[in-house]
């Protein structure tokens, strides 16, 4: 750590990888309990990439996507975002509420998505804190998640802005979700405020 920013180097990436593998495992367990179906969460990548390349992370830049975002304060700053397509979000809502056929983001659907993001995010962060070797990482204060539906690139600009202010490459942690062995179109992104070294 350096001030409020995480320093990117091979050692810090390795530490993140250990913490996030644990976080992904716990997040999968929490989601399984919440949804009532077996869900597993796998670490996909922790790689610094040029800022421009990061804008395709959620698909086509001008495709609308949904994002539940938690802002992290304390010793370790950044953002945790659960991103998903309309279709995937509605399927999640249907699983949780038992109300089929909704195709608009009403209060009920948003609430289902936000609560899922909250459970997932908190499980992830708790596991991350417990497995972190560094005491610097031990205080993480997440905000309640907020729901956003907008162009993928518009959302990603907001998510990566803090990093773009100080570096040309951005670091993110991406996970993949599987339900009963099938891949889901959900992405959990963790975007720390970083410095390159």
């Amino acid at each position, binding site marked *: 750590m350096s001030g409020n920013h995480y320093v990117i180097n091979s050692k810090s990436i390795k530490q993140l990888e250990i913490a996030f593998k644990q976080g992904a495992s716990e997040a999968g367990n929490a989601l399984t309990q919440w949804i009532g179906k077996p869900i597993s969460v796998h670490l996909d990548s922790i790689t610094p990439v040029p800022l421009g390349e990061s804008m395709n992370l959620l698909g086509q830049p001008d495709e609308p996507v949904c994002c539940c975002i938690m802002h992290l304060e304390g010793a370790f700053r950044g953002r945790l975002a659960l991103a998903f397509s309309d279709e995937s979000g509605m399927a999640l809502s249907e699983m949780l509420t038992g109300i089929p056929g909704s195709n608009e983001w009403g209060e009920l659907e948003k609430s289902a998505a936000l609560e899922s993001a909250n459970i997932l995010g908190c499980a992830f962060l708790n596991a991350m804190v417990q497995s972190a070797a560094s005491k610097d990482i031990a205080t993480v204060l997440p905000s309640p998640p907020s729901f956003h539906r907008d162009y993928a690139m518009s959302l990603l600009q907001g998510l990566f*802005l803090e990093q773009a202010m100080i570096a040309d490459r951005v670091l993110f942690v991406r996970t993949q979700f599987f339900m009963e062995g099938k891949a889901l179109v959900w992405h959990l992104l963790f975007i720390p405020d970083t410095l390159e070294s």
Partner: protein
Amino acid sequence: MAGIGNNLPRFVNMGDIVIGNGEERFSTVLGSCIAIMMYDPSKKMGAMAHILLPQRRTIGDDKIGKYADVAIPEMLEQLVKKGCAIRKIWAKLAGGAAMFNASSSFLIGEKNLVAAQEVLEKKSVPVLATHCGGTKGRRALFYPGSGKIIITINGEPEVEI
């Protein structure tokens, strides 16, 4: 997504500056970033930049299209090199939203807009229209051969500025 020859608009990524005319079209997607679009009606030529931040950082970053303070002079220089006259060029701006109110992007969109307007004023380039602010992203489509600009906010009707 991009390019001449496949009928799709050329996509302008963050930090890019592009110049064009004729039948070309440029598109970009904006959150807190700003699209600066310039047009010289006498040459029927235009330029688009997609800036992220108001000022260039001091530590080595040569992608000047990312910053309002250096992107605008660069756009003007490129247009003048192509035969445009500065006194005939106008500008229009889009973007600068406050995407999430718990982060720096809450304020950076507005700072981007103010910085772009200040630099354009210093360069005596009139700003004929803006479509900025709010909390939603925008898609901008620019026709550099005619100066036409179409802005779309997700879920709302498109508007020409």
